[in-house]
């Protein structure tokens, strides 16, 4: 392989990298205002998800309370609510683990 072909290949790669960079910049420019205008950023999604999980926990809690205090004798509904609360909580924990993992991965990145 001659030097000139290597040089042209390197230039090609560089050109491609520039293209990708400008493309991502364009996308970022498009993405950033859309999130702030729409009002439904990732953070808000996360918050509403958390609120939902909390709501389910509360519901299961109050149903268990009603069952044990004799206000309600719907055993299986209580069990279903508890199971749903457990599963949503597990899902939340898994999401948190993934987010933390991603964060740590970024923090480990050599600058």
């Amino acid at each position: 392989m001659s030097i000139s072909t290597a040089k042209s290949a390197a230039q090609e790669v560089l050109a491609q990298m520039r293209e990708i960079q400008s493309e991502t910049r364009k996308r970022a420019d498009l993405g950033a205002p859309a999130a702030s205008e729409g009002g439904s950023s990732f953070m808000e999604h996360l918050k509403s998800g958390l609120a939902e999980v909390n709501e389910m926990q509360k519901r299961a809690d109050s149903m268990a309370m009603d069952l044990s205090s004799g206000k309600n004798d719907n055993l299986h509904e209580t069990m279903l609510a508890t199971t749903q609360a457990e599963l949503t909580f597990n899902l939340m924990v898994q999401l948190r683990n993934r987010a933390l993992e991603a964060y740590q991965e970024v923090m480990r990145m050599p600058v």
Partner: protein
Amino acid sequence: MGMFKSMAISGSALSANRLRMNTLSANLANANTTRTEEGGPYKRRDVVFSATPAGSAFEDFLNDTNGAQLSKVKVVGIHEDTKEPRMVFDPTHADANADGYVAMPNIQVMTEMVNMLAATRAYEANATAVNEAKQMAIKTLEIGR
């Protein structure tokens, strides 16, 4: 939420079968009852199950057409058995008629016991379905761990 739909469906079946069990218990308890508020012997009662769409049909239609085909079970009513009362010859009974016959409820204890077994098994089957759905969800959460 897709993950909890099967649980909601099984939950409706659990409720329905509990009500069926209660009705059968009432039948057994009143197998020898000759007096009721409306007069005459106790009449056998049975539940009527009906399939109802799970969740709102409109929402299902918007999201996916397959979900619209699923249905919960609902008890639409408790019906009285119209079978004639059992006539038992017992002249000493307080409710015996002029010929010495007593109108007993149209309940066969053996049949009620078998129905009870069926209700228990149906309940068990649906409880198992709930557990399987839960296992599925847990396995989903284990993806990529």
